[in-house]
């Protein structure tokens, strides 16, 4: 049985998809941000591997092929960016300035935290992309020499927190304009923030969806500079 799993191309992929579907099901049933499909899927697969004594390498035999689609899927974010930009074009200056300020705030926070807690350079670059969409964040972390699985974990937790507390945070900062709300949610909490923004309204959702791609690209540039600071 072990050998069969070890050579199987489809076991790893199937269990990943199945776990994600289970996550989507939980999310639909309980509608709580903590039931993030990706979070559930990761915990589910880890639990299965531990329960049956299957090692990570065996799981990766098939699952590593999923990464083939990563680049084409990330490139497809251009379509999202293009579509969402159309209705918001006239306010592009305010929107881009806000997203840039957010991406910069994130980098400064990580830098301050790295100095306070004495991070290694590896830990520092692992945390730098934590506010952006996983597609860009994971690749960026790997490129700078970070631990990409920890980056993925940090990104998911950021998204869950951002989704759960978005309304309180926006109220705290007295943000009432729909565009500004969307920009805040998308810049801080990527797709999870956008899911919340879509519940609030169409403009909020579009602005947030736009911020996913834009803040990702801004963060790449900012991280290039910030990776030299520590």
């Amino acid at each position, binding site marked *: 049985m072990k050998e069969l799993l070890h050579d199987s191309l489809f076991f790893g992929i199937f269990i990943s998809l199945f776990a994600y579907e289970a996550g989507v099901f939980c999310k639909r049933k309980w509608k709580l941000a903590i039931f993030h499909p990706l979070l559930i*899927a*990761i915990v589910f697969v880890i639990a299965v591997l531990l329960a049956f004594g299957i090692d990570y390498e065996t799981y990766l035999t098939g699952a590593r092929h999923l990464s083939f689609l990563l*680049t084409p899927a*990330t490139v497809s974010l251009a379509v999202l960016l293009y579509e969402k930009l159309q209705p918001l074009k006239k306010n592009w200056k305010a929107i881009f300035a*806000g997203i840039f300020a957010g991406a910069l705030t994130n980098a400064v926070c990580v830098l301050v935290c790295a100095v306070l807690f004495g991070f290694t350079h590896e830990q520092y670059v692992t*945390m730098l992309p934590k506010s952006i969409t996983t597609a860009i964040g994971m690749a960026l972390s790997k490129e700078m020499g970070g*631990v990409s*699985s920890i980056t*993925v974990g940090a990104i998911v937790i950021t998204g869950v927190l951002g989704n759960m507390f978005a309304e309180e945070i926006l109220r705290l900062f007295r943000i009432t304009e729909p565009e500004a709300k969307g920009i805040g949610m998308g810049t801080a909490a990527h797709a999870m923030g956008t899911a919340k923004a879509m519940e609030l309204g169409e403009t909020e959702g579009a602005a947030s969806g736009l*911020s996913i791609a834009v803040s990702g690209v801004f963060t790449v540039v900012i991280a290039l500079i910030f990776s030299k600071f520590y």
Partner: protein
Amino acid sequence: MQYLKQFGLILLFSFLGELLHALIPLPVPGSIYGLLLLFLALCLGIVRLQQLQETAKFLLQVLPVLFVPAGVGLLESWGELKPLLLPAILLISVSTVLVMGISGRVTQRLLRRKKKTEGEAKK
């Protein structure tokens, strides 16, 4: 047939991204170059949305599943994660509040300033 053409087009931009990644000595992932090139091509009208929309939507839908293997990798990097856990949680909580607040405030302030000057121009 349409899916084949659409996927081919997306793969072309993925490849161009890889090419730039190899040529430019910066730690920028190839997928980012691909994303920017495709966005540019859409803006300039070289590529039309209809030429790749369905396949792009499909890829965006499966995108989150592609991170499951990396996330499961926490099983292996647990040793590296453990000392980072507490500072990371603190960092994530504080910075998520600040990033959301500051990006929203900046956008709001500039939007209102623009509305104000537009309003004055109308008078």
